[in-house]
C-alpha cells in the first residue's frame, strides 16, 4: 500500500525520510507518494507531524512532534485515557476510558494533573472524540453524536443551544438520529467544520465559515442544523476535514476536494488558490511504468486530513 500526500510540509510532516541539515522543506502541491508499506493501517495527521501505523514498520512519524505531545503520549499510556482532543482555544478534553469526559483549560494544565474545569458523566462508549477550532464532537458506538463548545460559533454544534442543552455542555445532535441510511459511523472535524458519515454512505456537514471566505465553502451547509451534502450521485466511503478544506472518498474510489488550497492541501497544483466546488482529483500515475503496461491499478481506500494537508491511502491492485 502507499500513502499519498499533499499540502503543508513546513516541519517535514510529509517526509518520512530524514531532512538534510538546514533544509527548508517546501509544501507538496499535488498528491505524491510519501510512504509505502505492505499495509497502512492508520494515518493521524497533526499540525506539525504525522503518525502512520504500518504493518511492517509499526508506528512511523514524520515532522516535528512537540515535547508536550510526547508527554501526552506518555501520560495516556500510564492512565486509562482512551481519547484526547484539543481545540484552537487551548481547551482539551479526554475520555477517562470508563464513563466520563473531562475538560481542561489547556494541555499543560492536563499534564500537570490539575483538576478538570468540567466533568461530563455518562459517556460510556465513545468511539471518536474530535475537535474543531472552538469545540468538540463525540461519537458513540450506537451512532449518537454529541457536540459542545463556544456559543459564538453555535453553527459548529449542528444543533441550536437551548437553556436545557447549552452550547457548553455535550448534547445530542438530534438531526443525526433516525437517518434514512443508518447511524453515523465516522466523524471528522477541523477549523469551523464538522462532517459525519452514515453506515449507508451519506455525508452530513455543518459549520461556520470562520475566517474562510464563505464563497469557497459554499457547498457546505453553514447553519445550526446538520444537513446532508451531495457530491453528484456518489455514495461517500470516507471523509476528512482540515482547517478550511475537505476531502471525500466515494464508494467508487473517486476523490473529491473542496476549500482552501493555500498550502496545496487539495493536491490541485500550485496555481489553484481554492476550490469553491467539489473538484475531482486524481493521484499521480508513474508514466514510465504505465507506458510499459506494467502499471498496477491504484485504488484509494481511505482519506485523512491535517489542518493544512491531505492524505490518501492507496491500495495497489494487480
Amino acid at each position, binding site marked *: 500500500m502507499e500513502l499519498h500526500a499533499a499540502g*503543508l510540509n*513546513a*516541519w517535514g510532516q510529509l517526509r518520512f525520510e530524514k531532512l538534510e541539515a538546514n533544509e*527548508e522543506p*517546501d*509544501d507538496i502541491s499535488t498528491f505524491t507518494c510519501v510512504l509505502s508499506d505492505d499495509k497502512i493501517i492508520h494515518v493521524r495527521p497533526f*499540525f*506539525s507531524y504525522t503518525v502512520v501505523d504500518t504493518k511492517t514498520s509499526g508506528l512511523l512519524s514524520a515532522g*516535528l512532534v*512537540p*515535547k*508536550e505531545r510526547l508527554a501526552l503520549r506518555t501520560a495516556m499510556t500510564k492512565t486509562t485515557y482512551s481519547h484526547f482532543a484539543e*481545540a*484552537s*482555544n*487551548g481547551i482539551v478534553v479526554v475520555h477517562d476510558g470508563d464513563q466520563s469526559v473531562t475538560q481542561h483549560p489547556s494541555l499543560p494544565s492536563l499534564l500537570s494533573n490539575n483538576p478538570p474545569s468540567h466533568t461530563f458523566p455518562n459517556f460510556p462508549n465513545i468511539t471518536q472524540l474530535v475537535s474543531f*477550532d*472552538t469545540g468538540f464532537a463525540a461519537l458513540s458506538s450506537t451512532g449518537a453524536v454529541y457536540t459542545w463548545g*463556544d*456559543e*459564538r*460559533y*453555535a453553527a459548529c454544534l449542528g444543533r441550536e443551544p437551548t437553556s436545557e442543552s447549552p*452550547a457548553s455542555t455535550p448534547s445530542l445532535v438530534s438531526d443525526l438520529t433516525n437517518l434514512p441510511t443508518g447511524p453515523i459511523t465516522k466523524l471528522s472535524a477541523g*477549523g469551523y467544520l464538522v462532517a459525519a458519515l452514515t453506515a449507508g454512505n451519506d455525508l452530513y456537514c455543518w459549520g461556520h465559515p*470562520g*475566517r474562510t471566505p464563505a464563497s469557497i465553502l459554499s457547498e457546505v451547509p453553514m447553519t445550526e442544523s446538520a444537513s446532508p451534502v451531495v457530491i453528484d450521485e456518489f455514495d461517500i466511503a470516507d471523509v476528512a476535514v482540515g*482547517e478550511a478544506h475537505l476531502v471525500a472518498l466515494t464508494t467508487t474510489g473517486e476523490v473529491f476536494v473542496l476549500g482552501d488550497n*493555500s*498550502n496545496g492541501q487539495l493536491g490541485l497544483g500550485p496555481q489553484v488558490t481554492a476550490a469553491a466546488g467539489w473538484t475531482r482529483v486524481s493521484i499521480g500515475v508513474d508514466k514510465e511504468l504505465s507506458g510499459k503496461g506494467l502499471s498496477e491499478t491504484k485504488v484509494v481506500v481511505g482519506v485523512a486530513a491535517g489542518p*493544512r494537508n491531505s492524505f490518501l491511502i492507496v491500495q495497489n491492485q494487480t
Partner: protein
Amino acid sequence: MTDSHSKLETACLSAAKEIHGECSSATSGGASSTPNSQPGNESLQGCGEPLVRLLGRQASQLLTLSSEPSAEGNGKDEKTALILKRLEDIITASYARFYAYLFGELPVCWRLMYTNASILKFAVLYLSYSGETGLRKGAEEMESGLDEMVKTLDLALILAGGAGERRGRRWIDEAFALLEGVLQARKLSPDGEHVIGDRPHKRRKGMSNDEEREAKLWEDLPSFSPHEPFTPPIKHPVQRAQAISLEAFQAYMTRKTNPVNPGPSPLVLSGVPTSWPARTTHPWSKPAYLLSRTFSGRRLVPVEVGRSYVDEGWGQKIMPFGDFLRSHIDPAPGGTKTAYLAQHPLLTQLPAFRADILIPDYCYSAPPGHPTDPAQDQPELDSPRLNVWFGPPGTITPLHTDPYHNLLVQVVGRKYVRLYAPWETGRMRARGREGGVEMGNTSEVDVGVVEGWDKGGGGEEEGEFREVPFLECILEPGDTLYIPIGWWHYVRGLSVSFSVSFWWN
C-alpha cells in the same frame, strides 16, 4: 551612512537576529532560568514548539540569505518566496487563535507571534525590495511591494496591537517613519524611481513662522463638504457652557444631586480644542492633510461597513485610508454603503495624528463612579483611552452605554447626540446575550426609526419608549460633549464628521 535606507536595513537585520535569539531561548528547555531570557509576558513559548521553531528558522534563513551575494540563478528568489510563505503560515495560524479564543482571553503570546512574524515578513519584503533583486523590478511591482509592506505592518498594529516591548509597536512606528524617508528620497532623486538615498531631514526652527507657513500650506486646499442631508430638530437641549476650569469641572461632576436623579448630567462645552493643531495648522478638515499623514493614503484603517452595528449585513473591513476617503467619505453621487471609521485608536496606530490633539485637562479630574450600578465601574485606567470616529453623513452609533466617563470632542463637521439617564436603564430595552456575545449595554431601540428619521419596522413598545425623557444636542466643530458614566447615548453623523472620544475614570 546614516540615511533612512541604511537605518531601516539595519533595523530589519537586527530584528531578525533578535527574533532568532528569542525563538532559540523559548525552545531550549529551562530557558526561563537563563539570564538572557525574556520576561514571561514577552515569551513566545506558549505558542508551542512547532511555531516557535518555524519562526526562528525563517529568521535564520533571512540572515543567511542577506549575507549571500545575489546572483541570477542561485535560487535566492525561490528561497525568499518560501520564507514569505512560511511567515504567512505563521501569521494565519496565529490569527486563527484570535478567533478561537474569547476576546480578552487570548494569551498574549499569540499577539507576539503575529507581530514578530509580521516584522520579519516586512524585513524580508524590504530587503528584497531595496536590494538588487528589487532594483530589477518595474515601477508597478515596486508600488505593489510597497503596499504589501505597509499592509504587513498595519495589520500587526490593527489586529495584534503591535505586541512586544522589545520591538512591537515602537519598531513598527520607526519602520514606517524610515520607509517614508526612503520614499521621499527616491522621489527627489534626479533620475527617478530606482535610486535609494536620502536627504537630510529639514529641521523646523522658528516655530510661529513655520506654523504660519504650515497653515498656509493647507489653506487653499479643499475642505470636506459641509453638506448635511438631514438635520434633526432639537427639543430638549443639553446644557451648554464656555470651557470651564478643571476645578469648576471637578465641582460640576461631584456636586450633590438629588437621590432620584443621581450623578452629574451631560454638558456641552465650547472652546475646548481651540488650540489643537487639528483645528488650525494641521487641519483634519482637509483631505489633503489627512492623506499627507497616512503615507499618501496607503496606511490601513479598520472600517465598519453598514448603517449600524446592530443591522444585518454589517461588517468590518480593513482598507487603505485613501480608499476610505475616496469611496466612502467623499464619494461620487450614486452612493455607496455607509462606512464608518469608528471606535478606533487611530492616534496610537498613526502617531503623527496624536500630535495634532491635546488631552483635555478634564480627563485628569477624579470623576464619581456609576450613579446607579457600581458593578459597572472598571479598574482605573492608566491614561485616558482615545478613539476616533470619522465618517460620512448618516453614520449611526446605536443607543448604548459605556463603563467610563466620556468627552466627545467634535473636530470636523456636525454630529447629533441623544442621551438618556442611567436611572432610565430599566426602560432602555437592553439587549441580552446574543449568539454568545454580551450585548446588554446596547438597546434594542433604533432612535432614528422611533423618530421617523429612518425607515424600519416599529414595535408596539415604541410608544412607551417615546415617553422616556431625554436630552439632545448637535455638536458643532469645536464643541465637546461630556457624557457621564452610565448615560445611554445615540450618535448620528449629520455631515462628514470627525470626532475624538476620551474615556477616563
